[in-house]
């Protein structure tokens, strides 16, 4: 048995050597949980954009402020029904072909037809005229540029599509081009030396999708991955004590929220929803599960959304007694087993959530235990997340726990509009209608006057805070571990970019 064993060891040593050579300080390996199995911007856009393979007409900085991307400037007509995007000239795709208005229009039209943000905008036409792209709307919509910064509106080269118009390659204009793609696990990148902007400092980079948080933590610790995104709470607290790496956590506009079916007799009264909210152990959850005590969500919009987060809202409290009294006001009385009943009906409900974000089932379990205190029997069903929109559509949903990202577009109005506009939304209000909010949202979407806009935003925030069609639980932190010698790492709270092009190795 000596022979095979030694063989293995040889492989091992060879491997170690190979590893060593692979670690020349001109490339990085980044690991993140998200697998990439498609070339389609509508499906894989989030990764393609983060890896700076393709770019949008409009770009955004870390504060969400819009800045020129492939478009140098944009203006709306007086009536706000037509937008002009002037394109950057001299930009070439990775395959050497020129970036033209036609290319942009084809890409955007496709994005518009596909499920994605553009579908949500009141667009009626996308056309090219010379060096500009013209988008016409049926009603004014100020957030359009922000929408064009979204991952599903990145611009692939015409050559990226096959004969039938299906995406078959990843060819963009970004500072990195794809050298190798092994779906769903990994993408290898090389610097695009023909990039129009400031060139990347690294020669190459590798993206590795590692689904398990444990694996990512170990990748970071062993140094196999130089930058690791989205660490789980346990892994994060461990890595803080590993001295070869730095860890950092950035608050992001993603919030764990509880969607309540206000159409359901149990929850039709705001008091019931407040009672639920009062019985949520936000601090406990933030301490024990997500482990960022300061991130207990005392209102829906996190501080990361500076325009929407408002300091003068009275923070949501946790108070079992008040919750109980509220429920008894609504005519609920505790049964023999401690579960509330009202005219023969047990207060027994089902919460839908999904395992893709490991913390969600845990939070659900915490709610289950806590709500038993106030006499609510909670069945937790951990399943595919499509059960939530499905339940919203057929009205079978009671409550749902999920993580909502209000930073999909630099301007959250898009998401808010979907979630709380007329009829609510799959990931927002259900069976809940509030005229004030609807009107305010219209203004926000269409007005150009900042003060008026801010006022309406305040109204919306206030109404949501009192009515609680969606109950916030905790805000998210974007957790990252970085090799100590890797410099220039910028963490984008909007998660639009991994900032590869700015990274460089200290020597």
């Amino acid at each position, binding site marked *: 048995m000596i022979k095979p064993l030694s063989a293995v060891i040889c492989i091992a040593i060879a491997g170690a050597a190979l590893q060593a050579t692979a670690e020349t300080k001109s490339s990085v390996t980044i690991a993140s949980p998200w697998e990439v199995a498609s070339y389609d911007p509508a499906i894989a856009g989030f990764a393609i954009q983060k890896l700076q393979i393709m770019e949008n007409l409009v770009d955004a900085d870390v504060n969400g402020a819009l800045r020129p991307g492939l478009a140098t400037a944009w203006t709306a007509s007086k009536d706000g029904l037509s937008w002009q995007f002037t394109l950057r000239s001299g930009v070439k795709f990775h395959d050497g072909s020129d970036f033209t208005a036609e290319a942009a229009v084809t890409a955007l039209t496709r994005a518009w037809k596909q499920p994605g943000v553009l579908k949500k905008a009141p667009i009626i036409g996308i056309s090219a005229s010379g060096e500009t792209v013209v988008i016409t709307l049926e009603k004014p919509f100020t957030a359009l540029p922000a929408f064009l910064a979204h991952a599903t509106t990145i611009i692939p080269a015409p050559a990226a599509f096959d004969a039938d118009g299906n995406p078959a390659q990843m060819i963009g204009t970004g500072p990195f081009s794809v050298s190798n793609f092994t779906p769903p696990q990994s993408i290898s990148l090389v610097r695009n030396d023909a990039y129009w902007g400031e060139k990347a400092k690294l020669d190459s980079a590798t993206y590795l999708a590692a689904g398990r*948080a*444990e694996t990512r933590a170990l990748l970071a610790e062993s140094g196999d991955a130089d930058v690791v995104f989205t660490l789980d709470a*346990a892994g994060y607290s*461990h890595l803080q004590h590993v001295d070869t790496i730095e860890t950092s956590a950035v608050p992001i506009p993603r919030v764990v929220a509880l969607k309540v079916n206000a159409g359901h007799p149990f929850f039709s009264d705001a008091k019931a929803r407040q009672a639920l909210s009062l019985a949520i152990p936000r601090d406990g959850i933030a301490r024990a599960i997500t482990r960022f005590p300061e991130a207990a969500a005392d209102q829906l919009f996190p501080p990361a959304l500076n325009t929407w987060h408002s300091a003068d809202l009275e923070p949501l409290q946790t108070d079992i007694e008040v919750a109980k009294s509220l429920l008894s006001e609504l005519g609920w009385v505790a049964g023999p087993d401690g579960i509330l009943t009202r005219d023969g009906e047990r207060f027994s409900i089902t919460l839908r959530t999904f395992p893709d974000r490991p913390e969600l089932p845990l939070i659900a379990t915490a709610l*289950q235990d806590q709500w038993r205190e106030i006499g609510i029997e909670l069945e937790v069903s*951990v*399943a595919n997340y499509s059960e939530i929109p499905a339940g919203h559509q057929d009205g079978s949903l009671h409550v749902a726990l999920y993580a909502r990202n209000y930073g999909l577009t630099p301007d959250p109005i898009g998401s808010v509009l979907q979630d709380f506009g007329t009829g609510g939304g799959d990931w927002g209000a259900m069976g809940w209608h509030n005229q004030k909010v609807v009107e305010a949202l219209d203004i926000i979407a269409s007005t150009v006057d900042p003060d008026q806009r801010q006022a309406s935003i305040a109204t919306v925030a206030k109404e949501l805070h009192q009515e609680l069609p969606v109950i916030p639980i905790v805000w998210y932190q974007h957790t990252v571990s970085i090799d100590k010698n890797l410099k220039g790492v910028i963490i984008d709270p909007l998660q639009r970019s991994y900032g590869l092009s700015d990274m460089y190795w200290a020597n």
Partner: protein
Amino acid sequence: MTDQSNMMALPHLQHKPSKLRLARVLGFALLLWLAIVAVGGPDLIGQDPAKQSLLSTLERPSLAHPLGTDHLGRDMVARLLSGAQLSLSLAFLSVITAGLPGTIIGITAAWFGGWIDRILGAFADAVLALPGLLLVLMLAAMSPGSWWALYAGISLTLWVEYFRYTRQRARIVLAEPSVEASRLLGLGPWLLVRRHLIPEIGPGLLTIAAFGAATAVTSVAALGFVSVGIRPPTAEWGVMMTELLPYWREAPFLILQPVGCLVITVLALHLSVGGMRRP
């Protein structure tokens, strides 16, 4: 290497029963203990396995919590106990649901031989060729959150091993002169099975069963790993393994506990069936 001869039969020297018997006694004692634990469940210590305290999570063993607390501050002893209830009963169940059909079909195939044998064999091969995981996941998905579906799926993949073993051994046994003699003496099928097949095949089957029980629980763990079968706040050893995995670094003693329980179970089974003579 020692030269052990068996040129002449020395029955009284062939095996040393005393040691074996001791092992068996130990095995049965363990099984009995497990049974008590499973029947008693968390009531034995009067702790609620679902009661959390988010402010005292991942605690080391203490007087209040002899085995510490899990990631939601629940008492580990209570969870392991209620886990024992589910895991053991369902492991037992899956072994039965896999073992009985497997054995019976196996004996049938060997008994009749010919085309019946061939058909059953082909069928078993086809089933083996189906990715077992496919069946399990499907069944799990068909009735979400149902443990029984989970274990039914698992047994669906496990029965074939019993079948193969029984069929192969039964073929040999049934060909022995002793069976011919019994037939000639007019003994009926039941006596043939009882006197010839069961004593010959039984031990091997029990060993497979012991392995099967472990497989069942670890499969549940595996499914939990692809986040199937999680159903808060139920405690099940396999699922606990997956739940506690993220904390393997901070509190390794936690994930080791359900594993330890499973080890004890498997060990008990093996000892009680008398060593693991593997077919």
